[in-house]
């Protein structure tokens, strides 16, 4: 009797696992089947031309890369830094509790609210306007909790004995953090970064009113720098815009490219994490 119950439960668990797997493969497959015919060399390397009536996402790809890199440049040092401060320097108490609470809350806020704040604060108050920089600052706020939390969790799993071992040999606290803690916590930190990249790639609501929807490529060398202060729509933003204009084939093309990017970055970070994990 007991056996039978166990077997049935096991069956259900397998079923659930299969269903989840099929759903994922189904979605991926659907997007790729609908999207790939749309993806041509021209689609990837040109920008949309209204005159010629052609679609191209080169500008959006560049914007996406800018957005990912800039956001990480802002959020990763800040996130890792605050995690180190909270875990290794701050005395547990009211302030640490408050910061932890704030971080937690920050990660639960709907992204459109970040968009609103980013537009008003970075865009208007700081005068950055509709620009990639405004978008990156806004997204940095959004992914900061992910990086901080994952780094903190990783630091917490590093045995206390490593810390006392290093300190007892005369290592300064910062030296100990740099040489022992951060390497040991690296897999967790990479996980945080991976999740952050996922959010950046997928975000549209917070970017529509901060980074806008520009899709042109820079025309000169200086243009690549000026671009930071110009409007630029990421792939996800363009996807949203294409859907709202009922250009579904373009939308699926973008979706396929986005998925490839996500898979690629996942793979890359997985390889990195393995490398760090050897010891």
């Amino acid at each position: 009797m007991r056996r039978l119950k166990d077997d049935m439960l096991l069956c259900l668990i397998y079923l659930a696992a299969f269903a989840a797997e099929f759903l994922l493969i189904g979605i991926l497959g659907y997007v790729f089947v609908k999207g790939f015919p749309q993806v041509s060399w021209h689609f990837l390397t040109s920008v949309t031309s209204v005159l010629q009536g052609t679609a191209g996402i080169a500008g959006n790809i560049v914007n996406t890369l800018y957005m990912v890199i800039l956001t990480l440049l802002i959020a990763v040092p800040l996130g890792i830094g605050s995690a180190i401060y909270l875990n290794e320097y701050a005395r547990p108490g009211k302030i640490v509790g408050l910061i932890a609470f704030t971080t937690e809350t920050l990660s639960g806020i709907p992204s459109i609210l970040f968009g609103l704040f980013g537009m008003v604060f970075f865009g208007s108050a700081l005068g950055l306007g509709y620009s990639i920089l405004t978008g990156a600052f806004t997204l940095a706020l959004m992914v900061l909790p992910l990086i901080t939390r994952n780094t903190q969790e990783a630091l917490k799993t590093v045995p206390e004995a490593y810390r006392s071992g290093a300190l007892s040999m005369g290592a300064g606290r910062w030296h100990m953090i740099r040489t022992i803690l951060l390497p040991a916590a690296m897999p967790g930190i990479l996980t945080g970064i991976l999740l952050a990249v996922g959010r950046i790639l997928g975000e549209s609501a917070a970017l529509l009113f901060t980074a806008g929807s520009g899709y042109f490529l820079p025309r000169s060398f200086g243009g690549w720098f000026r671009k930071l202060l110009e409007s630029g729509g990421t792939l996800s933003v363009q996807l949203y815009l294409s859907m709202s204009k009922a250009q579904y084939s373009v939308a699926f093309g973008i979706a396929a490219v986005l998925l490839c990017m996500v898979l690629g970055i996942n793979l890359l970070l997985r390889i990195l994490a393995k490398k760090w994990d050897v010891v």
Partner: protein
Amino acid sequence: MTQGKVITKKLNIYYGSNHALKDVDISIRRNVVTALIGPSGCGKSTFLKTINRMNDLVDNVRIEGKVYLDGADIYGRGMDVTRLRKRVGMVFQQPNPFPMSIYDNIAYGPRIHERKSKAQLDEIVERSLRQAAIWEEVREGLYQSALRLSGGQKQRLCIARALAVEPEVLLMDEPTSALDPVSTLKVEELLCHLKKSYTIVVVTHNMQQAARVSDDTAFFLAGEVVEYDTTARLFSHPTDKRTRAYISGKFG
């Protein structure tokens, strides 16, 4: 006229309101093994951690009195904690090799204190591993993770790591309590060799071990040093009846 390597004067330590060490006056002789014995919670580790100022890291700790290393007040103004910890090494109860290669574990300390060439580091690594009697076992796999060693090997690696910065004093907090008998024996033999060049203070739960390896023994009870004498005298003619009771196994 030989002065003690480490001398404490009216040393009192409080963790919050817990009075963990009470008026400890001790003079530890150089180049001998001094054992600290006593029931758990009596302040042996606290005393040990005071000598390399690892107690500074504890919240709410209050340290009163003086601790001298070669006559210099280690809590005095001129004392650089980094230098102090280089001179006073520590081995912990649980072997705690870092998650890196054997080589990097040993090189960790020397790299903190000054820039060294690869050749110098190679030399230090080999010398330290030899001193800790583990060279033969690991010489083939210096670049393998230290976490793959056995428990006893890990502890000898940690001893080698502590020796690599050429300390003067070696503090060991129950260094064999997590080890099997064979590894314990190896570490004990090691102590007898090392005392020629180092001043060693070892906390132990095990009275046979104290009798085997140490020259001097201090008996701690509830934060006080009840009796402190040569090991031979303390074990054969204890003057205090609490010492007599403890070494005959009546409590602890």
